[in-house]
Structures are given as C-alpha cells and as structure tokens.
C-alpha cells in the first residue's frame, strides 16, 4: 500500500469515525462509510491540507470513494 493511501485512510478514519478495515479502496464515502455531503466537502478540505494541493470543485465532485481520492492525490500531490 502506498504512503498516500495510508495517509488518505487515516484521514477518513479520523474524520468519519469508522473502523480502519471498513476503509477499503472501493468504499464509497456516502454509501459505505456514512458520510453526508458536508462530510465529503470536509474530507476534500482535509486532503488539501494534508497534501498541500488544491482540489478544484469539478475534481472534488469525482472523488466518491477512497480509491478515487488516492488516485487523484497520487497523480496531483507531491
């Protein structure tokens, strides 16, 4: 597992208060992890802070699962 994936999962666990083993690559924030729409905005803000990137609104709308976030950040962070 990549370092980025680890950091993403840590943020998701902390923010949504879910068990680490539930935070699978294909887990949907809203459908599987109990996030509401405001949580998804806050997750994006947390990713921006952690990785020092700006995630534009149109990109943010495509980040629906843990894997979506990891892939976006692998491509755009660092």
């Amino acid at each position, binding site marked *: 597992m990549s370092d980025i994936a680890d950091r993403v999962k840590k943020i998701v666990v902390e923010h949504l208060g879910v068990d680490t083993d539930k935070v699978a690559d294909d887990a949907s924030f809203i459908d599987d992890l109990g996030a509401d729409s*405001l949580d998804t*905005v*806050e997750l994006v*803000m947390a990713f921006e802070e952690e990785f020092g990137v700006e995630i534009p609104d149109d990109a943010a709308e495509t980040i629906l699962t843990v894997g979506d976030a990891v892939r976006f950040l692998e491509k755009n962070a660092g």
Partner: protein
Amino acid sequence: MFDLTGKAALVTGASGGIGEAIARALHRQGATVAISGTRAERLETLAAELGERVHICVANLADREAVDGLVPAAEAAMGQLDILVNNAGITRDNIFMRMKDEEWDQVLEVNLSAAFRLSRAAVKGMMRRRFGRIISITSVVGVTGNPGQANYAAAKAGMIGMTKSVAREVASRNITVNAIAPGFIETAMTDVLNDKQRESILQSVPAGRLGTSSEIAAATVYLASEEAGYVTGQTLHVNGGMAMI
C-alpha cells in the same frame, strides 16, 4: 456575557452608519475587526479612533474581484475569521414600472450576490475551526415589501432565504447563520426623508421614534456571541414594533 475576546470579525459597509456602529460594538466586546467599505477616509478615521485590533479592507462590493479578495484579505490580516457581518447595502429606488435593469442588477449584486460570495468564502474556515457566525443585515421591507423598492426588497428577502438554507447546512458544525431586519433607523438612508414622510413613518411605529444604529449593533453582538449558539436561521426584527412577524 457576550464577550468576543479572541474572535475575528469582518464587517462590510463599515463606512456607513449601521456598519460603523456594528464595528464599534464588536470591537468594544473584545473582537478584532476588519472594517470594509468604499470610503477609505471614513474607515481610516474609524480605525484611528478604535486603536488596536482593527484592520482596514477597502472594497467595492459591486466589483466581483474585490468581493472574492475580501475574505482572504481579512483572514490574512487577522489569522482567521469567526464572524462575518454582511451589512453593505445600496438603494436604487424607483417605481416598479420605471425600474431600469441596471437599478435592479446593481442592488441585487451588492446586497445579495456579494453576501452570497462572502459567506461562501467565510464558511470554509469556519467549518475547519468548528465555529462561525454569519450575520446578514436585511430589512423589514424584505418581509413586508415597500413601494419603490422592488429591487431592494427582493434582495433583502433573498438574504433571508439564503440565511435559512445555509443555517440548515452548517448547523452541525457549530456555525450559526442569522439575519437582522432593521426597521427605520436614523442613518444617511433615512436622512433624505422629508418631514411629512418622516411623520407618516412614525405613525406606523408603535415605539414612536426611529431606531438607532447602536440598537442594530447590539442585536449583532448578541447573535455573534457564544451565548447565541442555539439561535440559527432566524431573522431578528429590530423595528420598534412597526411589523410584528
């Protein structure tokens, strides 16, 4: 009660009567204030008078670039933004049938769209810090209507609808969003009334007098305080009883 020490506030329209009173009152309660307006000289006079914990952000809210720069500028100056007071407003009165597109557009732009853009910018940091107060100064005419002010009343009613919607969205993050609806207040906006108009207005005000800017400021201090944390989505009418809603 109502101690605002350590809080950072941005007040738009602070070079006008009500905005200036609001800035003074928030400052008196201990807040750091960023005062925004179009008239730099008046802002400088106010800042000199208040002394410490004051930052000047000159901005014309008819200019979208200036609007978008305002919250970042206030956050940069104060380190954070806890309290946003959307107070800036203009009037372009005309009877409805003669109302120009420009008169409609200008009033909606400054009184409603700027409040939307500023609130959207401010709420991000507030969500992060799990504290925020957004207070929009609307008007009694946004609820009752007023001949000659279709544009102004529409903008002020729009503010109330926006306030309620945003309040629902962010309540769980300890951010409250409220409006204050002044009635007739002694300001430059009401100074233009002649004696006859003034008399007829006073007949509709049970309190028998115009309100003062400091009475609007006191309502703002209340809604900005920690103590008002359970009040959200509300419109607080400060109008001497002229409309009881």
